[in-house]
C-alpha cells in the first residue's frame, strides 16, 4: 500500500488501494478462519480428531434417520457383540439393539455438549476480559466470585443442585447445569492473558480515542484470545460428556430418551454387567463410545494448542495479506498453557 503525498497533513492521506466490502470479508475469513484451520489441519492429531468428531456428528444427524430406533425384543436377549450383522454390537437383556441405542443417544449428547460449552465460554469470556481489562475494584470483586466458584467442587455442586431442583430432561438445561462452575477456571486464565494485552499500544490508542470499553474488548482484546477460547471450548465439551455420563450412570439426572450413561446404569443394575460376563458388552459399548469421543476432543484441543505458537502461525500465514504477527504469545506466567485435564472439573 502506498500513500498519496502533498495533501497537507499526514493525517489526511487516503489509501490509494481500496478494498470492496466483499474483499474485506474474504480477507477476514482467510485470516480468522481459514489460516487457523490450515494450521490445525497440518497436524496428524487434528486430522484424526476431525475424523472422530465427524463420525459422532454424522451419527447424531444422519445416523438417526438410517438406524431403526431401539425397542424391546428387536433381537434375542443379551446376544454378544460381533455375531450377526443385524445386531453388530449385541443386544440388551430386553433384546434392544445396542448400536441403535448408541446412535439414538448421540443427538441429546451433542445438544448437551453445545449448551454447556457455549455457556462456559460466554460467561468466562465476559468475566475474564472485563475483569482483566478494567482492573481495580471491579477486578477484585469479579475475581473473588470466580475464586469461590473455582473452589467449590463441581460434581458435588451439580449433584446437590440436581437433587434439589426440579429438572426436566431437557438436554440444553442439563448441559448448562453440568458446566455450572466450569467457567471459573477459564475466566481466570483469560484474565491473566488480558493483563498482558491491556497495555499494548493499539489498545492504549483506542482508549485515548475514547472508544467504549465494550468495543475495545470486542475489537482489540477478544480476537487475540480466540485460539485459547477455542481450545477451551473443546475441553469444556469433554468435561460435559464425562460429567453427564457419570451422573446418568449414577442415576441422578432425569432423562427422556436413551443415553450412554443410562445404558451403563441399566447394564449394571438390571443385568449386573460388572459381575456377569454375559452382559459385559452392554456396559462396554457405551464406555467405548465415551472414550473415543473423549479422545477425539483431547486430540483436537492438543492440536489447537499449536495455534498459540506464533512461529507456526507465521508459516501458515503466507496467503494472508496482513497478519498481526504475534498472537497472544505463549501463555503468561500464571495458568499458562493447557491446564492438566486429568479429572473432570
Amino acid at each position, binding site marked *: 500500500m502506498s500513500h498519496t503525498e502533498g495533501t497537507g497533513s499526514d493525517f489526511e492521506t487516503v489509501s490509494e488501494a481500496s478494498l470492496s466490502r466483499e474483499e474485506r470479508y474474504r480477507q477476514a475469513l482467510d485470516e480468522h478462519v481459514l489460516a487457523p484451520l490450515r494450521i490445525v489441519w497440518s497436524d496428524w492429531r487434528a486430522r484424526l480428531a476431525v475424523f472422530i468428531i465427524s463420525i459422532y456428528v454424522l451419527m447424531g444427524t444422519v445416523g438417526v434417520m438410517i438406524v431403526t430406533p431401539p425397542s424391546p425384543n428387536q433381537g434375542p436377549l443379551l446376544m454378544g457383540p460381533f455375531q450377526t450383522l443385524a445386531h453388530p454390537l449385541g443386544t440388551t437383556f430386553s433384546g434392544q439393539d445396542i448400536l441403535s441405542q448408541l446412535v439414538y443417544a448421540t443427538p441429546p449428547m451433542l445438544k448437551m455438549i453445545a449448551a454447556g460449552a457455549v455457556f462456559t465460554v460466554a460467561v468466562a469470556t465476559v468475566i475474564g476480559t472485563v475483569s482483566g481489562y478494567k482492573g481495580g475494584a471491579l477486578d477484585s470483586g469479579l475475581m473473588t466470585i470466580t475464586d469461590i466458584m473455582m473452589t467449590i467442587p463441581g460434581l*458435588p455442586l451439580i*449433584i*446437590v443442585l440436581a*437433587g434439589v431442583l426440579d429438572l426436566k430432561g431437557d438436554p440444553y438445561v442439563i448441559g448448562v447445569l453440568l458446566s455450572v462452575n466450569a467457567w471459573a477456571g477459564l475466566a481466570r486464565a483469560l484474565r491473566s492473558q488480558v493483563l498482558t494485552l491491556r497495555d499494548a499500544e493499539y489498545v492504549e490508542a483506542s482508549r485515548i480515542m475514547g472508544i467504549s470499553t465494550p468495543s475495545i474488548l470486542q475489537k482489540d482484546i477478544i480476537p487475540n484470545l480466540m485460539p485459547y477460547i477455542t481450545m477451551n471450548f473443546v475441553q469444556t465439551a469433554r468435561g460435559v460428556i464425562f460429567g453427564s455420563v*457419570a451422573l446418568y450412570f*449414577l442415576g441422578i439426572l432425569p432423562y427422556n430418551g436413551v443415553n450412554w450413561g443410562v445404558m451403563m446404569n441399566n447394564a449394571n443394575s438390571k443385568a449386573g454387567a460388572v459381575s456377569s460376563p454375559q452382559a459385559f458388552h452392554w*456396559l462396554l459399548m457405551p464406555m467405548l463410545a465415551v472414550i473415543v469421543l473423549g479422545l477425539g476432543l483431547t486430540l483436537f484441543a492438543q492440536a489447537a494448542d499449536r495455534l498459540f505458537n506464533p512461529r507456526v502461525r507465521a508459516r501458515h500465514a503466507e496467503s494472508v495479506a496482513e497478519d498481526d504477527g504475534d498472537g497472544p504469545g505463549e501463555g503468561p506466567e500464571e495458568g499458562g498453557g*493447557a491446564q492438566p485435564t*486429568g479429572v473432570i472439573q
Partner: protein
Amino acid sequence: MNYIAKRTAQAVFTVFAVMSLTFGLIRILPGGPTDFLRARLIRQGGLSRAQINQRIGALTNVNPDKPLFFQYVDYMTSILQGDFGTSTWYGDPVSGILLDAIPWTVFLMASSLSLMFVIGVTLGAFMAYREGSKFDVSSTVVSLVLNSTPYYVVALLFIAFLGYRWQLFPTGGRYASELSPGFSVAFIASVLYHGALPITSLAITGFGGWALNMRGNSIRVLGEDYLRVARLRGLSESRIALRYVARNAILPMYTGLLIAIGGVFGGSIILEQIFSYPGVGYYLIRAIGQRDYPVMMGGFLIITIAVVIGIYIADLTYGWVDPRAERGGSRESY
C-alpha cells in the same frame, strides 16, 4: 504476611458462601427440602403446624416459623457449632455419619492426587529430556489415551475384571470386616488393599495430563538463556535438572493443582459409589436416592470444606515456593 491474610480471608469467605448457598437451597427453593419434609410430616398426621415446623427445624436447622433472617442466623450458628442437622433416613446426627466418613475420602483422594502428580511430573521430565525419542512418542500416546478415558470407566473395568472375574481385589468396604481398627500391620495392609483399586483408577487416568503439561513446560525451560548460562557456569547436571528446570517447570502447574484438588474430591462421589467404599461421596449419593436432605447438604459442605483446606494449604506453600506470588494489586484501573 499480607498474602497469607488474604488467602485466609478468602478461604473463610468461601466456606461462608457455600453455607449460605446450602441455606438458600434448603429454604427458598419451591418444591425444595422444606416443602418435601412438610409434605411427609403432614402425611404422617397428628401434628399441628407449629409442631411440624419445629420438627423441620430440628432436622434441617431451619425453622420455617421464624423470620427469614433469624432462620439464616440459626442455621449458620448451628453449623459453626458442628451441628449439621439430623438424617431423615438413619435418624442419627449428620455430623456423626460424615465425620466418620471424611477421613476415608481424604485418604483416597490425597493418595491418588499425590500419586498422579509424582508420576506425571517425573514422566513428563524424562519425556522432555528425551524429546523426539521413541520413549517420548510412545509415552505421549499412552498419556493422551489414558487422559481421555474417564476415571469411572477404568474403575468399572477394574472392578469387573480384577474384582469380580479374577477375584484379586475386594469389591467393597474400607477394610476386611473381621479386623478392628488400630495401628496393626494387618489393618493397615487391609486398608491399602481395599483402597488400591479406587486410588489406582484415579491416578492412572490422571497422570497423563500432568505428564504432557510437565513435558511442555520443561521443553520451554530447557530453551531458556539462563539455562545456557547455568551450563556455562559448569553447574552439575543434577543441580540444573532439579533447581533450574524442575522448579520452573512445576510452578505454572500450581494453578492446575489447585483446580485438580476440587476435581479429585468431586470424583470421590462416583468412585466410592462404584467401589461401595463408605466415604462422604457414598453417603451423599445414597442421600439423594433417599431424599435425605440434611445428609445431602452436610456432605456437600464437608467436601467443600475439605477442598478449601486443601487449596489453602497448597496456596500457602505456593507463596513460599514462588516469592512473586505476593505481587499484584498495584495495576491502574480503566
